[in-house]
């Protein structure tokens, strides 16, 4: 029996219910205000009883469950409430889901990032459901004058067999809401799960397919104006003179002015990354009018000197980040990365004696891998609604870090935290881009200046050229084999602009006696940020392509070769800080071997394998390629995943499919390049994202059966596929691929079918 401590005492319950005006919504939400569907209307209860911050129960048994975390397409708005519903023992048909308000007094870690929502929410969500169930059972026990232990629940019904009493949750809700919360409650046995582990449809799906307002860009408030910004055309430049006379006189334009988003010299938090703090703003009645006026501005841009940012960390200390002057070029980036100054290289991990081992090696394999900067390109461009007055600031829009941006906004607008309200809208993609909320601050500054509610909208061009990119990376690998083709030395030296992608303690660390991992980084004025599976999104593909070549040199099957290394890491690990469980790693490789039919040589099929561990989960993928009309076509991806318990299997499979497709797309087609500081791609005509015909025809996903608590899934399927793609391309075309995007290096005659 598992007991869990409850974190709501009587007082916090009372406080919460006081917030819920008239027993209704917990804080008014624009999204909740969208009309309920007709089916819901019929079954709307007359009265709601709030049991705890996570849920309320209607007198007719309908249950509203709050989804605490921001939804970026990773399905948390469905799968997090499923966990609450499981412990509550409610019939899923009786559940309505609402996006929770930002309230860190009730909800823990309201953040979408690091693939951690389910993993870190797991206990709190179970506890919320179990607590509510406990109260309902207690209410029934009191009402029927029977012992608590004899009460049973199942799918929204409470029963006491001995006295033949039954009641629906709705009937007991009013009593339950008055009972004191116990110190601890019992959790279900995992083997008794009825909802977790079964596929439940996306709770917003109907609204999505019928075009209902859900996203930040759809947000609307009476009297709201539209605002847009103009930022410098190049990194390393800043705003000079503004001639706005033409723009001002255009129809529908209310004002044109300059703003400073973050105060000069102020401390920025990690989520406040922004390249351009001095901006020109155009405000008007409608989007198209503002877009046209933007083009009529005559702006002067000046070269920016070297500057520095004060970055505050979690502990409250600040560090200085130098922002170099200069207009950077992708071509020179490549040269700089290939010729890094020895003094910049730092040893991150060293086992044994690599140099001595390389001297003994019979074969030495050396390869270098690179990837370019990438723009996140969420399909919904950056935007935010703001209504800032003297004594409060209301925001609404797509943000992965509402908790952190609330603090940034409090700081920027000089208001206490309670006076900042941020409503989370569904997000048209996140991928890390919306961890950085400078657009929320910009919206606030504009609203404050205009003294009206405004919605700040980025054009695709604004979005793509504003920075916060995936860094450019570079990795050099060296491996030494002895006469028996054993891997006796391994060396990785990885760096990037402006950070290294190295994860020194990940595989194959722990599996090789002589192992050396080094990193370096180069400064830049191009801003970067987390991008789906940061760092892993490059190093996984590089490492897994390299291991493929080493296996080939060793004359071994690529899966056998990896399993051999993992066996070593399991039985006699080298070093102590190995950041993975070798058995689970090997488990996904074994599973993908079986499910992909790896051992059956099929003629005409060219296959690449890859496996990686990141964000606490293990993923192995096999990519099958065929040649159709002389061109390589991706037939199928088979994925084996170990992410512990899978909460919502079909949605999890969707994530795995999307991760594979997204990974193939970025490795194959996408890049952001710079010429004299100017991003050379600013829209989808020049920035290539994968399209329908380029996606694998099938993605076949298998999850390792597990009763381990769930771990992340939004990111892990993304990085390894890049290695599987490179390895399959080699089999299909005879060419190894070292530099992303591969399309730049694929010979014309073998170009992908599009």
């Amino acid at each position, binding site marked *: 029996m598992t007991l869990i401590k409850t974190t709501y005492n009587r007082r916090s319950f009372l406080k919460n219910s006081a917030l819920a005006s008239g027993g209704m919504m917990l804080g008014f939400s624009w999204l909740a205000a969208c009309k309920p569907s007709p089916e819901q209307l019929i079954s709307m209860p007359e009265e709601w009883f709030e049991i705890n911050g996570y849920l309320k129960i209607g007198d007719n048994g309908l249950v509203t469950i709050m989804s605490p975390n921001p939804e970026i397409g990773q399905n948390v708005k469905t799968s997090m409430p499923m966990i609450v519903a499981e412990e509550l023992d409610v019939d899923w048909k009786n559940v309505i889901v609402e996006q929770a308000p930002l309230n860190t007094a009730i909800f823990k870690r309201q953040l979408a990032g690091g693939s951690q929502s389910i993993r870190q929410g797991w206990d709190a969500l179970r506890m919320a459901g179990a607590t509510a169930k406990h109260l309902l059972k207690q209410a029934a026990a009191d009402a029927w004058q029977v012992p608590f232990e004899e009460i049973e629940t199942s799918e929204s019904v409470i029963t006491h067999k001995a006295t033949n009493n039954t009641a629906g949750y709705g009937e007991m809700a009013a009593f339950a809401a008055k009972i004191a919360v116990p110190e601890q409650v019992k959790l279900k046995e995992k083997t008794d799960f009825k909802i977790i582990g079964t596929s439940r449809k996306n709770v917003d799906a109907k609204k999505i397919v019928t075009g209902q307002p859900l996203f930040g860009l759809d947000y609307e408030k009476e009297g709201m104006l539209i605002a847009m910004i103009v930022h410098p055309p190049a990194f390393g430049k800043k705003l000079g003179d503004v001639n706005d006379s033409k723009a001002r006189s255009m129809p529908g334009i209310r004002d044109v002015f300059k703003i400073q988003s973050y105060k000069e010299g102020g401390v920025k938090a990690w989520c406040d990354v922004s390249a351009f703090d001095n901006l020109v703003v155009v405000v008007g009645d409608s989007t198209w009018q503002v877009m046209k006026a933007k083009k009529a501005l005559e702006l002067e841009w000046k070269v920016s000197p070297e500057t520095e940012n004060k970055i505050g960390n979690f502990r409250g200390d600040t560090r200085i980040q130098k922002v170099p002057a200069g207009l950077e070029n992708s071509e020179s980036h490549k040269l700089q990365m290939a010729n890094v100054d020895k003094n910049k290289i730092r040893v991150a991990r060293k086992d044994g004696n690599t140099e001595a081992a390389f001297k003994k090696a019979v074969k030495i394999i050396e390869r270098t891998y690179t990837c370019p900067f990438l723009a996140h390109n*969420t399909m919904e461009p950056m935007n935010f609604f703001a209504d800032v007055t003297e004594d409060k600031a209301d925001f609404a829009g797509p943000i992965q870090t509402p908790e952190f941006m609330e603090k940034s906004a409090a700081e920027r607008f000089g208001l206490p935290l309670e006076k900042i309200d941020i409503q989370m809208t569904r997000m048209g993609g996140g991928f890390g881009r919306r961890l950085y909320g400078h657009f929320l601050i910009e919206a606030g500054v504009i609203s404050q200046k205009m003294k009206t509610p405004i919605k700040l909208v980025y054009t695709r061009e604004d979005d793509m050229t504003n920075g916060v990119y995936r860094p450019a990376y570079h990795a050099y690998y060296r491996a030494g084999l002895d006469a028996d083709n054993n891997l006796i030395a391994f060396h990785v030296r990885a760096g990037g602009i402006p950070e290294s992608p190295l994860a020194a303690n990940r595989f194959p660390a722990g599996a090789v006696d002589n192992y050396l991992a080094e990193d370096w980084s180069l400064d830049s004025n191009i801003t970067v940020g987390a991008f789906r599976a940061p760092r892993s999104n490059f190093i996984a593909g590089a490492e897994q392509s390299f291991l493929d070549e080493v296996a080939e040199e060793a004359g071994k099957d690529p899966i056998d070769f990896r399993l051999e290394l993992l066996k070593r890491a399991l039985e006699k690990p080298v070093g102590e800080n190995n950041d993975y469980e070798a058995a689970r790693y090997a488990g996904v490789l074994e599973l993908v071997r079986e499910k992909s039919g790896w051992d059956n040589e099929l003629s005409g099929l060219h296959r690449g394998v890859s496996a990686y561990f990141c964000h606490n989960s293990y993923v192995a993928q096999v990519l099958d390629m065929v040649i159709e009309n002389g061109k390589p076509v991706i037939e199928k991806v088979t994925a084996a995943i170990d992410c512990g318990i899978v909460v919502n299997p079909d949605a999890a499979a969707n994530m795995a499919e999307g991760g594979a497709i997204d990974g193939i797309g970025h490795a194959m087609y996408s890049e952001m390049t710079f010429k004299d500081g100017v991003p050379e791609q600013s*829209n989808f005509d020049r920035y290539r994202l994968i399209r329908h015909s380029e996606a694998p025809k099938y993605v076949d996903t298998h999850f390792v059966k597990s009763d381990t608590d769930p771990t992340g899934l939004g990111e892990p399927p993304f990085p390894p596929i890049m290695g599987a793609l490179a390895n399959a391309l080699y089999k299909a075309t005879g060419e190894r691929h070292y530099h992303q995007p591969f399309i730049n290096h694929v010979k014309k005659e073998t170009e992908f079918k599009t």
Partner: protein
Amino acid sequence: MPTYKLKINGDKKIVNVDADTPMLWVLRDHLKLVGTKYGCGIAQCGACTIHIDGTAVRSCQTPVSVAADYKITTIEGLSEKGDHPVQKAWLEIDVPQCGYCQAGQIMSASALLKANSNPTDEEIDAVMNGNICRCGTYTRIKKAIKIAAKSINA
């Protein structure tokens, strides 16, 4: 500003906007039909797809002055109850991740099936290549289109 009489989802609407205003912004800003999405503004992503006389067009590149003569359908008007075979197939397969591109995908797919109720994979690709999904729901979309085709032909 000129006045335009529009036929949208079976309703008559009157708007006063500049002649060059794209239908995308007429729908979103002036008529509050926000199901049609902005993704690129240059006919590259398909998020803004609507039907004009039953044909899929990119509303970001369709000025109101051109659209005014035709029958316009948006995602909100594709079916009365959200039960167009394509919408039903989308729900059955649970296609969306973030969902932002999906209205455009559905509008492209439904126009495709209207013109060709039994498309091959290549024909699906040829039409759907104009619609980007950053979340990578392409394989599900293809599956859903085939299910919708089956139910249309049944």
